[in-house]
């Protein structure tokens, strides 16, 4: 068996059908590649010798024999799950996340767990307690984050596809930086049961893949209602590939004027604008729209997220699991010292910010105010979607930056998320599609497409048609 090209899900299915390789051989092929190349990228935190998964040993299954990488904040029964944090360094998952169960029954196998910013908080994967991941396009640069390990693994062909999680851009921005496809589904489309919670009103799991078709295939497997996550909608899940080949002539594409603002780099703007012309050339109608409260989204996000983080991360108490301080001698010191020793700076920053925003006397001014602004942003999108079918723009204001370049300035890192955060606040699906290399940096630029709530089908079709036209 000799495989020289980067494989998609379709390629694996075809190879298996034609007996070019077996499921075991393809798994080994990737394990060998990871052993050889992971040192360069630090994309994986742990790997599995034997395929974890493959319960559906049936070639009819859509993902049969497809080796996948899983972000290390998603539980796989009996294996270590760190969330990129020292506090969970030795934590063993007690059960499978729902997405893992679903992928297993679709026949996928798991290669290992990928690096992330601690508890998925960051935009560069530099906040991982286990060292930064490096961008396969230039190892002196960040892969984006927080799903940087997953995006790098897919970009470097150390997995056929990967799962990430996206609270404010953590799938789309690393996909953009690494030149791969990343989809954040509608809030409520994919179960988060077994995902280590960061900000529960925003977290969503989604695929990182080599092309749009693969993202549609993974969505077919992982979507749907789950009794263990009561935020999941009881809506039918369509076959996302069924209409994907249909052209998008006449599709109304909204372009928010607020997206082209100060801070957007010239090379990203140039690529995004030329991609919009491409959409026009395949029959879409570009429509000028406005998201008037766009500039307030990031501020609302950085109140809501830390608040929910401070609640979710209170479970790490040094008592039931995870790191426990050896020096503490009373119960209260166990909390204070275990958390001081176990959490990294960004986790501490957000926990404290959240504790403050929720504290007596400040709740109305910060948390309640932010949730009201969130309503305004959702209203903006609702009115825009009365006029258009999808909305487009940049994913990130810049291409991948140097490791260490922004790590001393938390606010500069937060600004990386300015185009992705509003989509999470409004609960909408968003996808990053590679649209070429920046003229100055020569690095990948991502094009963001935003869909209507629970309309991943149209979003994926538009993304697929765009991808074909860019070939």
């Amino acid at each position, binding site marked *: 068996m000799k495989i020289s090209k980067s494989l998609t899900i379709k390629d694996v299915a075809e190879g298996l059908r034609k007996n070019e390789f077996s499921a075991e051989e393809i798994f080994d092929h990737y394990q060998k590649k990871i052993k050889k190349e992971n040192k360069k990228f630090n994309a994986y935190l742990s790997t599995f010798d034997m395929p974890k998964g493959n319960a559906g040993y049936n070639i009819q299954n859509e993902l049969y024999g497809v080796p996948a990488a899983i972000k290390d904040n998603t539980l796989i029964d009996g294996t270590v799950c760190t969330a990129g944090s020292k506090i969970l360094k030795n*934590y063993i998952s*007690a*059960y499978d996340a729902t997405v893992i169960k679903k992928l297993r029954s679709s026949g996928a196998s798991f290669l290992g767990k990928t690096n992330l910013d601690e508890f998925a908080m960051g935009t560069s994967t530099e906040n991982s307690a286990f060292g930064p991941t490096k961008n396969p396009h230039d190892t002196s640069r960040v892969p984006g984050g927080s799903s940087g390990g997953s995006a790098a693994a897919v970009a470097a062909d150390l997995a056929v596809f990967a799962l990430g999680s996206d609270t404010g851009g953590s799938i789309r921005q690393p996909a953009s930086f690494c030149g791969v496809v990343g989809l954040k589904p509608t*809030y*409520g489309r994919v179960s988060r049961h077994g995902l280590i919670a960061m900000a529960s*009103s925003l977290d969503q799991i989604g695929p990182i893949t080599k092309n749009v078709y693969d993202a549609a295939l993974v969505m077919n497997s992982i979507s749907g209602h789950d*009794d*263990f996550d*009561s*935020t999941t*909608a009881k809506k039918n899940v369509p076959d996302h590939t069924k209409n994907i080949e249909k052209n998008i002539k006449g599709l109304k594409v909204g372009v928010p004027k607020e997206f082209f603002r100060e801070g957007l780099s010239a090379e990203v703007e140039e690529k995004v604008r030329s991609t919009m012309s491409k959409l026009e050339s395949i029959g879409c109608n570009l429509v000028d729209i406005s998201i008037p*409260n766009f*500039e*307030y989204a990031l*501020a*609302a996000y*950085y*109140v809501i997220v830390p608040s929910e983080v401070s609640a979710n991360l*209170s479970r790490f*108490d*040094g*008592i*039931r*699991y*995870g790191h*426990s301080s050896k020096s503490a*001698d*009373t*119960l*209260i*010191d*166990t*909390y*204070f*010292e275990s*958390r*001081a020793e176990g*959490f990294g700076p960004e986790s*501490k*920053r957000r*926990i*404290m910010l959240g*504790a*403050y925003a929720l*504290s007596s006397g400040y709740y109305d001014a*910060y948390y*309640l*105010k*932010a949730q*009201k*602004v*969130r*309503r*305004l942003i*959702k209203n903006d999108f609702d009115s825009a979607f009365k006029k258009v079918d999808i909305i487009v723009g940049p994913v990130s204001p810049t291409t991948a930056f140097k490791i260490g370049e922004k790590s001393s300035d*938390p*606010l500069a890192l*937060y600004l990386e998320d300015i185009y992705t955060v509003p989509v999470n606040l409004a*609960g909408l699906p968003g996808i990053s599609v590679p649209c070429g290399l920046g003229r100055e940096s020569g690095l990948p630029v991502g094009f963001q497409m935003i869909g209507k*709530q629970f309309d991943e089908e149209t979003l994926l079709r538009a993304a697929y048609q765009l991808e074909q036209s860019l070939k």
Partner: protein
Amino acid sequence: MLSDKEVEHITQLARIKLTEKEKDKFRKELSLILDYVKKLNELDTEKIEPLYQTTGIVNASRPDEYRKDFEMTEDLNEKLIGQTPHKENRFVKVRSVLKK
């Protein structure tokens, strides 16, 4: 800018022990972020209802039946209790609540 007293109060709420140097660093960083989010006050939200989540689902319920997905077995018990840093047999051990 947050005062030293406010930072001390926040560390108490957050249950995180900080060194003096860390306190000073976080005082500056948190103040910077809080200044940034103050721009929310430019918006009049007097008559706006807060939006806590976007699904529109209210009161998700399920049949009141015994779910077998997580049946407690010796194995699951070990997986859960086995991870506690301090334990005795099947029990989680905590340090003393009051100082001796």
